């Protein structure tokens, strides 16, 4: 028996898909409703990101307007950091939303691998300077705020930086735990499939 002997040879065309009770052949009505619901949910997430980050941008921009000298620079750095982070998350979100199912399978799997990775090196390269910018801005604000209690001391700024580094580390670790729970298995499956197609 050869592989060719298993070809449907026209017989499969007699399958009456339209009259199968378990298959919805004309899904337009359901489809449009489903799409609308999906879009609504995705828009909610997007709106949430814009609101949270946008709020911080507005907050720090107002702070920048009200302050002078080093404090103003600190607020400007925070506003810039949050603004750029907002753009970064928007870009990441829109890219994730746009899965190209029409690409050749190998390309599709490579893209999926990138999408499901916890943080790609490109994302780390982008987010690293943003975190430094925000940390730096924050430490300037803290140092300036405590200037009257600790004149000329950089200790408050150093403490802030340490807390900031720990908080960033905890955030990364918590995100990783969540990723392990929800996406690691899928990610591993995608990698296996991609390797299989690349062999």
């Amino acid at each position, binding site marked *: *028996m*050869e*592989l060719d*002997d*298993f*070809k*449907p040879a026209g*017989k*499969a*065309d007699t*399958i009456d*898909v*339209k009259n*199968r009770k*378990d*298959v*919805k*052949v004309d*899904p*337009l009505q359901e*489809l449009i409703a*489903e*799409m609308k619901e999906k879009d609504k949910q995705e828009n909610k997430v997007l709106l949430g990101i814009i609101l949270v980050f946008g709020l911080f941008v507005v907050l720090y921009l107002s702070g920048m307007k009200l302050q002078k000298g080093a404090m103003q620079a600190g607020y400007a750095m925070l506003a810039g950091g949050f603004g750029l982070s907002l753009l970064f998350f928007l870009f990441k979100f829109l890219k994730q939303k746009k899965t*190209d*199912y*029409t*690409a*050749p*399978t*190998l*390309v*599709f*799997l490579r893209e*999926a691998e990138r999408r499901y990775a916890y943080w790609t090196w490109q994302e780390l390269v982008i987010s690293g300077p943003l975190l430094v910018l925000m940390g730096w801005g924050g430490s300037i604000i803290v140092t300036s705020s405590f200037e009257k209690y600790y004149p000329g001391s950089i200790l408050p700024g150093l403490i802030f930086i340490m807390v900031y580094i720990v908080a960033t580390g905890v955030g990364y670790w918590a995100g990783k735990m969540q990723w392990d729970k929800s996406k690691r298995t*899928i990610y591993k*499956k*995608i990698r*296996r*499939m991609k390797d*299989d*197609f690349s*062999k």
Partner: protein
Amino acid sequence: MNREHLFRNAIGDNNQRIFRICNYFFIDRDDRNDAYQETLIRIWENLHSFKGNSLLSTWIYRVAVNTCLSHIRSRNQRNNLIESTIDPEILLIPESAGNENDFIEENKMIFLQQFLLNLSMADRTLVSLYLENLSTKEMAEVTGMSETNLRVRIHRIKEKIKKEWEEKQNGTG
């Protein structure tokens, strides 16, 4: 031509193909039907991006394969052949399985399903496209693999299925 009209035309001509592709990937009826529905959704979503650079059927195969693989990775694919979930109509087994020819046909198709289940995802994809009579060039367009690689892999699969069929017939498999 509006989107709805395009969609209806695309599905009308390729409905059977989509259904068969899903069937090659899933033995479980619910999984297969979910993948089928999902493929239709992906076609609806992406129809505007079809530029006519390839045959519409090739483009649809690509969406169907990618959707099936996507569905597999998000669900726990059942590895065992579960008799109750096999759809005789899809296995192309005649309902009046009375004569010897029907019995041979049924055995053949069950063997194919078992064979497919033991293949890697890439090989299963290739078999499904091969059984759909796609040329090597079209298969390369769908999968993104090189034609040379495809030929080698198809050759190996052919050898394997032949060997396993013979073993089954001799009662050694």
